[in-house]
């Protein structure tokens, strides 16, 4: 791949998937910028990848996420430039030319007869001032109201931050590879592989921790399976590779809500996991 030769399709695919090293990516990007043919082919590849992305199993986002987005959208309301309207022409009929208007030079007879407009016009300024005063009052009240709700939101945010911090600490402790993990067994019993799953079917939340797992070659992984109570096929519930101490965990894998589990099992699969379990099931618990 250089500036004169086109990028091979194999490489365009890798580039599109951001699997190039930074140097390779920079070189490819520079070529593509100047090469309509490669750019066209890259667009085709991106189209292929978009089609492939649509093969994913569809999951609905949490119901609150729509509300969360729309709240944020409302908070970041767009400020559009105001349309400038033409300044209304002031009525000057009956006043003659402004440039020649010199009050001191006028006599009673020279004064024009006051038209309806000229009688009303001086009051317009007062009416505008009154309107502005009312508007200012309203704005003040709105500002005070916003200030109150901001304070309330700040309190909620502080509470949420505290909750999130606690949750994060729990999560960090459970997933920290340097954490000390002790499995208590009967004295003098040899260590055996153990897994502990904590599952809330209603929420589709699962935490799994394993100890004393035998090491695996790099091309293999352990895969956890949820065996539904309704007799359905086992559902993949995450893959894991134990660390050097034989410990591993799976935290909150994507599982649809409401699936009652009859049991959980673990199999050994090829890297990346499988959609159906490969026998034997090496660990099982109900």
């Amino acid at each position: 791949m250089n500036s004169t030769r086109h990028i091979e399709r194999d490489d365009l695919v890798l580039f599109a998937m951001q699997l190039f090293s930074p140097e390779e990516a920079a070189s490819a990007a520079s070529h593509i910028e100047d090469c309509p043919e490669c750019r066209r082919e890259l667009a085709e590849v991106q189209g292929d990848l978009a089609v492939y992305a649509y093969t994913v199993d569809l999951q609905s986002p949490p119901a609150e996420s729509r509300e969360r987005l729309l709240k944020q959208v409302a908070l970041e309301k767009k400020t559009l430039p105001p349309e400038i309207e033409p300044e209304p022409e002031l009525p000057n009929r009956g006043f003659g030319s402004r440039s020649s208007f010199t009050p001191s030079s006028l006599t009673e007879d020279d004064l024009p007869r006051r038209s309806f407009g000229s009688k009303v016009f001086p009051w317009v300024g007062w009416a505008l001032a009154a309107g502005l005063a009312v508007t200012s009052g309203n704005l003040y009240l709105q500002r005070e109201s916003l200030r109150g709700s901001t304070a309330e939101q700040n309190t909620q945010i502080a509470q949420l931050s505290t909750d999130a911090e606690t949750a994060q600490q729990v999560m960090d402790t459970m997933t920290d590879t340097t954490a000390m993990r002790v499995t208590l067994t009967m004295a003098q019993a040899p260590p055996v592989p153990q897994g502990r799953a904590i599952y809330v079917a209603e929420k589709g939340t699962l935490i799994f921790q394993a100890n004393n797992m035998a090491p695996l070659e790099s091309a293999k992984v352990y895969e956890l399976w949820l065996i539904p109570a309704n007799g359905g096929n086992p559902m993949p519930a995450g893959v894991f590779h134990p660390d050097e101490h034989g410990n591993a965990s799976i935290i909150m894998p994507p599982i649809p809500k409401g699936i009652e589990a009859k049991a959980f099992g673990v199999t050994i699969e090829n890297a990346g996991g499988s959609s159906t379990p490969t026998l034997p099931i090496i660990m099982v618990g109900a």
Partner: protein
Amino acid sequence: MYRETRIVNTPPSSTLDDAALLGLVRKGDEPAMASLFDRYSKIVYSVALRVLRDPAAAEDVLQEIFMQIWRNPDGFVATRGSLGGWLAVVSRNRSIDALRRKRPADSIDEMELASKYNLAEEAERNHMMEKARGVIGQLPAEQRKTLEMAFFDGLTHSEIAEMTGDPLGTVKTRIRSALTTLRKAFTA
């Protein structure tokens, strides 16, 4: 000064096409934004969830992408292809960045994408999805797995070669062949 845009005598935003919705979003129309979310949140979230395997992180990607559309609807222009396709790929790329704990690069969103499908139409979207799943299901297992590892797991060709024990060239060929089969199935 905030300005709210309300269009009178126009059809509900849920029936408008993507370009019309983006036009309304540009004017600050919140219901149009809600319609875009209803149309594409499922695919954006599902792709992110598949990559990250973490619902909270996937939801963050979802929010981030839709807020990006709200803040800068011009970031996606119709000449770049289908909005639905673009969103699916951006979701994948953002999620891979999150997986690598890398700051998202703006350049990943600046892509042209050739698409012949009107993904704004639910029926067409479902048809395309079913067809694509069928094609992928028929691929040889090694091709299917290799593409999955590269696209959804973000593994480089070297990492895949190391994990599977296949030569680098084979990995690249498998990924390309899988995508070629997919393209052929849709152009046939």
